[in-house]
């Protein structure tokens, strides 16, 4: 178990492409951090640099109290779970789990005991003598987990470990992984492009975009206080509504003049207004006209998609709230509005 520290870590691939711009953050001991971002934003690159599978172009990486920039992956005291499980197809489950320990010259009895422990923890006991090809996707995923946990590493690294599973299994494994991490208390870095996984599993989320860290924060912070329009629209399904607005006469006005809240300290010009779909109410007395085009029925709640002026807009309504079709009116909860600079997309 260990704290992880990144100091202006940067990656430039040999072809000159800068996949990760200088990035610093700190992960305290035992924390579960999720790196989330769209495909190609450099999450895997960052994770692979931490694992030692990719050279660090610039910066300092420490795990525990040790700078590990030049240290071999095997000696970094880490374990990694890959997207395609990367199980050794010719070895039994038992050998797959034990292989890393065997290479570390640990005595047979200890290995057997650790394999048994891990297998029990992961419900794999009856599959120990099977080959990976004879297992289901979820079981293979568990074997990959087993291979990681028998090593008692200081740091777990996960690279999209659930993306090859079907939705139901994914939900189940998500909970299992999180519970396991809680129980073992091992510092973990988990890479995913799925914001639901990020929200549900993380102690802290690191949102990345285009090789840059956009925001670091708890799921609550990232969701309710996004640092940029990118984070606002990446996190949440449906994402935060973003409306073009103006500062005028000390008010923030949308839709060509409707005031929604007082403007902060004497600002003028354009601004982007963000509001979560659940912070909007259908309200006949409201002063914002809205046209509902489509209602998505989701059981416990509904999503109302439509037009606010000439901009698309979505509303989240609980099942006992009204769900009108066509023209209606709505009001926003002013406390939950986020304002972003229209040029840079940064939070004001």
């Amino acid at each position, binding site marked *: 178990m260990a704290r992880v520290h990144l100091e202006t870590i940067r990656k430039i691939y040999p072809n000159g492409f800068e996949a990760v711009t200088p990035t610093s953050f700190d992960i305290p001991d035992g924390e579960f951090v999720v790196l989330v971002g769209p495909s190609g934003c450099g999450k895997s690159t960052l994770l692979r640099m931490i694992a030692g599978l990719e050279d660090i172009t610039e910066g300092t990486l420490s795990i525990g109290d040790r700078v590990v920039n030049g240290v071999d992956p095997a000696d970094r005291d880490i374990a990694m779970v890959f997207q395609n499980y990367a199980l050794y*197809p*010719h070895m039994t489950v038992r050998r797959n789990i034990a292989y890393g320990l065997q290479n570390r010259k640990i005595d047979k009895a200890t290995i057997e005991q650790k394999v048994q422990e891990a297998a029990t923890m992961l419900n794999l006991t009856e599959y120990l003598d099977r080959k990976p090809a004879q297992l289901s996707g979820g079981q293979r995923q568990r074997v990959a987990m087993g291979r990681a946990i028998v090593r008692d590493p200081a740091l777990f690294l996960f690279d999209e470990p659930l993306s090859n599973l079907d939705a139901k299994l994914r939900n189940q494994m998500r909970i299992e992984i999180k519970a396991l991490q809680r129980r073992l208390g091992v510092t973990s870095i988990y890479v995913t492009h799925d914001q639901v996984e990020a929200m549900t599993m993380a102690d802290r989320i690191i949102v990345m975009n285009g090789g840059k860290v956009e925001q670091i924060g708890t799921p609550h912070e990232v969701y309710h206080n996004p640092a940029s329009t990118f984070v606002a629209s990446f996190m949440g399904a449906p994402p935060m509504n973003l409306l073009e607005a103006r500062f005028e006469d000390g008010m923030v006005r949308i839709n060509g003049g409707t005031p929604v809240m007082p403007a902060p300290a004497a600002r003028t010009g354009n601004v982007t207004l963000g509001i979560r779909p659940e912070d909007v109410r259908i309200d006949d007395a409201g002063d914002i006209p809205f046209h509902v085009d489509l209602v998505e029925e989701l059981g416990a709640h509904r999503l109302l998609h439509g037009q606010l002026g000439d901009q698309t807009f979505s509303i989240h309504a609980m099942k006992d709230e009204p769900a009108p079709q066509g023209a209606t009116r709505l009001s926003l909860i002013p406390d939950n509005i986020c304002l972003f600079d229209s040029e840079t997309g940064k939070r004001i």
Partner: protein
Amino acid sequence: MADTTHTSENTVARPRKSIKWGTVFDHTVLILGSLFMLVPILMVLQTVTTPDLETIKNGPGLTIGTELDDNFAKAMFQASGFSGENTGTSMLINSLILGVGFAVGKIVIGMMAAYAIVYFRLRFATFAFWLIFTTLLLPLEVRILPSYEIVQQLGMLNTYSGLIIPLVASATATFFFRQFFRSVPNELVEAARIDGAGPVKFFIDILVPLSQTMIAAMFIIMFVYGWNQYLWPTMITTDEDMYTLVRGIKQITQDLEGTNVPEYGRANMLALIAILPPVLIVIFFQSWFVKGLTESDK
């Protein structure tokens, strides 16, 4: 429901009355093809069981004789030549050593070369690979004299190592293993790195077992290639106790030119013995091949 079954039966039954010429043609081709392959072997079998005198008088016939065991004993244990050292048994052993030595040597060297080319950041690795590959354009026959000279200067004439080592580097094996290694997922390599497997361990623990099917295929090809070598053993070995089967048969047919009764039975027996091991190897490794292909997904 009953009606539909009925009509469909009719439609199935009707074409049976007319002859399907396509099928007849297919089968004719297949039957002719298998006869083409089988008849020579059947003739050899017949000759092997018949006394040589009868073969000389009547030519190949249809009757199965009783000489099988005699001919077998002669072929395996009776020496031909002067030294009395090249019996069928010794030639069989020499052929096996050559075939297995070839196959194992070529597989080991090909795998290691491919391993270096695919997994290590060598300068000019691609260039080195294509250099190896172009040796395919230079078959043994082209370079046989310089090769002979080198073997002779190294004092390796009439030795197994002289037979095997000069031919053991194989562009074919290197090429096939290279293609195979490139198809092994990168994540597997990385998982092994994190699991603390060094280059040697990774090769032995993971790459070699994964290559099972490729090794089996290479073994078949290279064994048969080594087994069938004729020109090279003829040049490198002059001692009779180093003769291989392929070469020994030639020697017996040379004996036929005397005034004795030609030993058809014995010569054909040797030919049979010479065919058998490659056939067995193919049959044995083929089952392995299929097993490997169905059980492992790399």
